[in-house]
């Protein structure tokens, strides 16, 4: 899952990035409202984590503007403002969740997964296709009840394709799910991960649509 973090405190941003990466997330962070808007315009991400006290603009003003622009991705507000008034206002202005600082990393991770599965129209964390089961929260993948060991990126790639179902995802979209801006991507990195997935789950798991991208192909029954 790719997360965009908007947080101006460097120390907290570092901590959240390290914590979420340890939980298999791909995280980018920006430190101002203007940078958040710019990033959202170019980036494919699944969830936005928004701090309210930003240096250039209050997050409370940014929220309705993002929604007015038609940005529908789930937004989790992460702030030290603990009054009921602030919580209500943020939720009314387009936030989907509100978490108070200081928070527990596990809780943040669980809430992000909950937001994600709600967007995907599921009510449990498990993504299922016949004998293939994937749990994005725990990182467990099993085929015919047999656990399959996947790396973090293979896992993210499989989850993105399974969630997209029959839609075709471009190579760029898939790379966005796997790497944040700070990471260097080798040109054939995506192909390597696809190769490994096919080796572990069967050749038909990912279809290559020439000139367009890739699609989830299912497993042999």
């Amino acid at each position, binding site marked *: 899952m790719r997360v965009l973090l908007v947080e101006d*405190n460097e120390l907290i941003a570092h*901590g959240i990035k390290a*914590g979420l990466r*340890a939980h298999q997330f791909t995280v980018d962070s920006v430190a101002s409202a203007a940078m958040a808007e710019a990033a959202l315009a170019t980036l494919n991400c699944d969830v936005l984590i928004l701090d309210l006290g930003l240096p250039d603009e209050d997050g409370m003003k940014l929220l309705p503007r993002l929604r007015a622009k038609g940005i529908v991705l789930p937004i989790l507000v992460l702030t030290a403002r603990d009054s009921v008034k602030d919580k209500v206002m943020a939720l009314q202005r387009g936030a989907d969740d509100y978490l108070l600082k200081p928070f527990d990393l596990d809780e943040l991770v669980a809430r992000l997964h909950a937001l994600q599965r709600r967007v995907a129209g599921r009510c449990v964390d498990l993504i299922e296709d016949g004998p293939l089961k994937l749990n994005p929260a725990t990182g467990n993948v099993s085929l015919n009840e047999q656990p399959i060991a996947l790396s973090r990126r293979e896992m993210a790639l499989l989850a993105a394709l399974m969630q997209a179902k029959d839609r075709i995802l471009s190579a760029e979209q898939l790379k966005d799910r796997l790497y944040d801006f700070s990471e260097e991507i080798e040109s054939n990195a995506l192909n390597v991960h696809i190769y490994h997935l096919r080796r572990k789950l069967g050749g038909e798991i990912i279809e290559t649509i020439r000139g367009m991208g890739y699609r989830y192909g299912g497993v042999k029954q």
Partner: protein
Amino acid sequence: MSLRLRLLLLIGVSLSLLWGGVTAWTLYNLDRQIRNTLDQRLSMSAQMVAGLISQNAAAWDAAAKGNKRDTLLLPAGKGLACQISSLRGEVLARTAHTHPDATRSEALGFTDLTINKEQWRSYTTEAFGLRVTTADRLSERNQMLHDVLFATTLPFMVALVGSLLLLWFGVKQGLLPLEKIRQALAGQAPLTLSPLSTQHIPKDLLPLVSSLNQLLSRIEQTLERERQLTSDAAHELRTPLTAIKIHLQVARITEGEEAKTALDYAEESVARLQHTLTQLLTLAQIEGDFCWDDGQSTSANEILKLAIRDAAPQQPERVQLGAIATAQLALPQALAVTALRNLLDNALNYSPANSVVRVETQRLESAMCFSIIDQGPGLQPAELALVTQRFWRRSSTKGSGLGLSIVAAIAKRFNGKLELSQHENGGIKATLHLPIQR
């Protein structure tokens, strides 16, 4: 004692004493007058009887000389007696149904007698060879006296009770506006103070109510500021706490270099939290009644040296000192050093690395003026007005936002002055006035 009780007691006791005194005086006079009048009537009736007899003296003489005459019995009113006797003591006539002793008098004039436990007052006169005695029963007399006195006292008493009732009612009505103000004050919610209504308030209470309203609005502002401060302080403490918590959690779930980095960040966050807490504590002590007096002599020269050593321990050459005026400062050394160090810290941190910060001093009549000029980017006029506010800072990650608040608080406590202005070279010129000993 309540105002109402005071008024009631003061006016009530005065009224009662006045009315009571007047009543007592009237009663005393009336009593004396009535007794005199009754005595006069007694003597007049005796003389009248003697006068009547003198009109027909011959008949009485004959009667007086006749030896075998029975005593003539006269009809008489209740409690009134009369006796006519010869000078030899022979009773010629007397009122019936009265005890003969009542009118047996030896001396002329008024006499008081007690017969069969009844008191009589008699008057005896002699005329035309006859002795006439008239007597009043005192119980009759006293009964009449009581009736008169009661009839006189009653209106006074009614008037007194009426006045007291009117007084009670009047005081209650008169103090009603005060009672309304009291109720309005007692009904104030502890967290929101609203001004009192000035409608239906008498003219002489308006100054009081408007003073109260001014006080209420000042308290409300102070409360609001404190609330804001508490909320800001909570935010300022939560931010480093959040960083500490997240990095510790990351350190727990990662290994090797990553875990070490997380612990380093956690430690840095602890240092920031500690800095903020120390600054908050210093500010609370300056603004509170903490005693700072360490008894040390504080020369401006020494304070500057200490402040520069604290602010720029690595690069003392970045601080360029102008001529130092000599003066002894009239405030504790620790605070003077803190104030100057905070100003130097800001100047050094918010200007380009290795740029020079200039410090100038000037001795004024009652204060020492320290000017600190940096070569940083300066501040907008709107920002200049905000810099001494607690927790204000330009970027949210650098500093605690309390440094200049502390300088301003020190200046305020010791009647000094802190001014920040835009210097012509682009940087900030901070001017701090501190009082000097005279």
